[in-house]
């Protein structure tokens, strides 16, 4: 063949389309950019886009279609952990490659997957440390608020263990879960307020998807300000904030490995390319498009795969996997990210931003260097032996 096919597996309809659509567009932009510069090993990349429609079994089916019908060399896709879990068996069975660009809970290490989003130690733990610090407000009590699925559950399990290690007692931790799409946060916000009466409190939010808007609106209207009870979120980025009136939310926090507001030439170029692409493709709301962390992770993932293919001189799964280890890429975050030699995760910087009135983040903390991922969190019993992986 004179092209190399790659699959793009992001929901374009259904509840997750809110987050995933832009990842598909970024992927297409990146591929167009690579093609414009000569492609991979002199061949053009051909993207095969499918829509798994936010339906987990359909994810598995579409993955199989991409691999066995369209014969793609690699798939870029998935957002939620559950979608990733549902396609995993397919990738293992067919020995194919998946690049997963979203922060997740860890506790997984598959040979066929490269994780370009954050592991808990690259996001959740540093963020919690920050809100406990003097600069972050010195929180003593914690509300762990999340959507009820594997990512928040596992993350909170890790965080609880971490907080224990910092001497926080269980009575000072409140763990609350709401289902996907929950939209009435009156009671929960009232409870947070009550809980916060007992001492300086921070909310650690792993709410995913559609629930964030009603939660923040309720928070804003109930008068809980960031200076009183800061909320630090792991799934709220620039893209999600486009749908919220951020004025009442100023000061609430998010932790990521990249923010659009970071100033460096690579990021400036990245943003510019994205805006130009959005305008050229006439994407809806092209004038106001933003970049965010998973978009950056998608971008980085595709480039690293390209580098690995060129190093391996083949798109063969095993050869590419071998070539991936140690790949480096100067990312828009301003750091040079490196694919770990063994654990299929990127070394990433950690950044914490405060929401600004314009929907961007004011970066109030970032690590000096990149941090190696710990997919097997040391805070989970039984993971001690896996730390070297």
């Amino acid at each position, binding site marked *: 063949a004179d092209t190399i096919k790659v699959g793009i597996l992001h929901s374009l309809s259904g*509840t997750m389309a*809110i987050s995933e659509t832009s990842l598909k567009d970024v992927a297409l932009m990146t591929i167009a950019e690579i093609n414009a510069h000569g492609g991979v090993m002199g061949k053009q990349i051909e993207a095969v886009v499918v829509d798994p429609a936010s339906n987990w079994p359909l994810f598995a089916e579409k993955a199989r279609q991409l691999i066995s019908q369209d014969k793609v060399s690699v798939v870029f896709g998935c957002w939620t952990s559950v979608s990733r879990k549902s396609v995993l068996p397919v990738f293992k069975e067919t020995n194919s490659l998946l690049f997963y660009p979203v922060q997740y809970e860890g506790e997984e290490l598959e040979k066929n997957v490269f994780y370009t989003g954050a592991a808990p130690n690259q996001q959740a733990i540093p963020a919690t440390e920050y809100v406990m610090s003097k600069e972050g407000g010195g929180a003593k009590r914690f509300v762990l608020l999340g959507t009820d699925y594997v990512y928040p559950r596992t993350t909170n399990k890790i965080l609880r263990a971490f907080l224990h290690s910092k001497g926080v007692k269980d009575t000072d931790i409140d763990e609350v879960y*709401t289902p996907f799409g929950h939209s*009435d946060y009156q009671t929960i916000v009232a409870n947070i307020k009550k809980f916060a009466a007992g001492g300086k409190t921070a909310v650690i939010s792993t709410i995913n998807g559609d629930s964030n808007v009603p939660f923040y609106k309720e928070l804003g*209207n*109930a*008068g809980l300000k960031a200076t009183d009870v800061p909320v630090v979120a792991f799934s709220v980025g620039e893209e999600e904030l486009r749908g919220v009136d951020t004025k009442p939310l100023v000061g609430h*926090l998010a932790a990521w490995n990249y923010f659009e507001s970071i100033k460096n030439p690579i990021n400036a170029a990245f943003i510019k390319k994205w805006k130009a692409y959005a305008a050229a493709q006439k994407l809806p709301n092209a004038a106001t498009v933003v970049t965010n962390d998973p978009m950056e992770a998608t971008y980085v993932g595709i480039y690293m795969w390209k580098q690995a293919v060129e190093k391996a001189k083949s798109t063969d799964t095993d050869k590419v996997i071998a070539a991936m280890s140690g790949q480096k890429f100067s990312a828009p975050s301003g750091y040079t990210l490196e694919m770990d030699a063994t654990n299929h995760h990127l070394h990433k910087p950690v950044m914490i931003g405060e929401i600004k009135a314009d929907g961007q983040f004011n970066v109030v903390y970032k690590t000096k260097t990149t941090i190696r991922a710990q997919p097997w969190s040391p805070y989970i019993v039984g993971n001690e032996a896996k730390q070297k992986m």
Partner: protein
Amino acid sequence: MTRLKKTLMIGWLCIQSMAAQAAIDPALLKSLAGDDPDIRIEAVNKIAALANDDATRILNALNTDALYARPNGDVLIIDDNKPVNPAFNPATDQSGPTPDDAEGISVNNRLRGVVEGALSGLKLFSPDIKRRQTAATDLLKNADPAQIPLINKALQKETDPDIQATLHQVIATANLHSPDAGLRKAAITTLATSTNASIKPALQRLLEKNPDGSFIEPDEAIRIEVVRTLAALDRQIATTDFIGKVFYGVSLGSVLLLAALGLAITFGLMGIINMAHGEMLMIGAYTTYMCQMLFRKFLPGALDAYLLVALPAAFIVTAAVGIAIERAVLRWLYGRPLETLLCTWGISLMLMQTVRTIFGAQNVEVANPSWMSGGVTVLGSLVLSYNRIVIIFFALFVVFAVWLILNKTRLGLFVRAVMQNRRMAACVGVATDKIDMMTFGLGCGIAGLGGVALSQLGNVGPDLGQSYIVDSFMVVVLGGVGQLAGTVIAALGLGEVNKFLEPVAGAVLAKIAILVFIIVFIQKRPQGLFALKGRSVE
């Protein structure tokens, strides 16, 4: 924190003593723009201590991200709304154009807290009664003995009894740990009327024992007083809790009601199993968004009024969409309710995708107008947000209007007649086509109004409708299909039940319990709450 309190005091004294002063020291300003958080905080405090208009202006600017720094060390206040010379240099008292190299000075929560504290201390003397009230309430959160002199001063000047009461409570809270037993006791007695749950831990601590077995509070009388105050506080909190739940329930109920009302017409009255109902809500919400955008663009000054335009606009747009659907598709399906399910399901898919194509899959931002932002504090600590209050009244209004139309107008009579026996209605001379069209249009238009309301509470995205469709059907069916009164009672009832169950069972179990309740309830009343009985039903 201590530094803050000192500052407040100094600030107060300064206000008293200082006349108008020259521009602010540039060095002080420069350190504001620095990197070291502690130095910056100190700078804020020093500026606050100046306590003049410039200081307030600078602090306000810092708080609203309007303070900029240049590499050369100049600090500027940049007001984007000012057409000419938006950049004001407090050090030189001069305005000029915005320089290219000006960078926003970033503020984090810690610094913002300090700035807000400083500002609220200053605000205690503001001529605006509202600002004083907020300032006093803010102080309550972090009451400290060091503030007492300042507060006493403010008290002397204060004329408003509410603010006075708040300030007394601030003093009492601050005095809780006073070494003077009399003061402590007085403080505790004063606090018996407090509604501030955050003093509970402090009071409880007074009842605890030291490691050596002695009480932390040695005075037995005071301890008794503490117990009494705690009990009063608990009662107060319980009442507030209860009222809160009632309000939350009514609020949830009104949301359900607005979501379901349109369906009560299209499904309840017309028998169209309208799966695209949710999308009508969504279109209403997107119309609101469009109105907001247009106002932002063309009438930024009247932005707060965008909702008033959005209401008729949403009604018209959704009614038009509804009428188009009715004319194109549904009119062929009367008397075949199930086909309408299938068809409207298809329509709903297409409408969602249309919105995705036009507006993107992401949510769009709809902001509450300022008169609907925030909330009113009642009973000391319960915040009833304005948007929810407005929506409750709006729901009542819409229900009333629908009731009027259906029961008090000829149109309403025709609508009901056509829905019961289309052929006979035609035979007595009713243009059934027109009535069908208008009824469906009305139902959709009302859904559009519901969409406007929903846009004020949650997401506005292509999937907005999906999350309300099941609930809407439940409400209509529980109330009794075709029964407006039933729909109202069902919506409010479900809202209340939900809100009283939620604290006990959690959000999910509460919802499950409600669904089970609906299933069981329908066993008892197979035709819904307000079922018609008798022969006429068959």
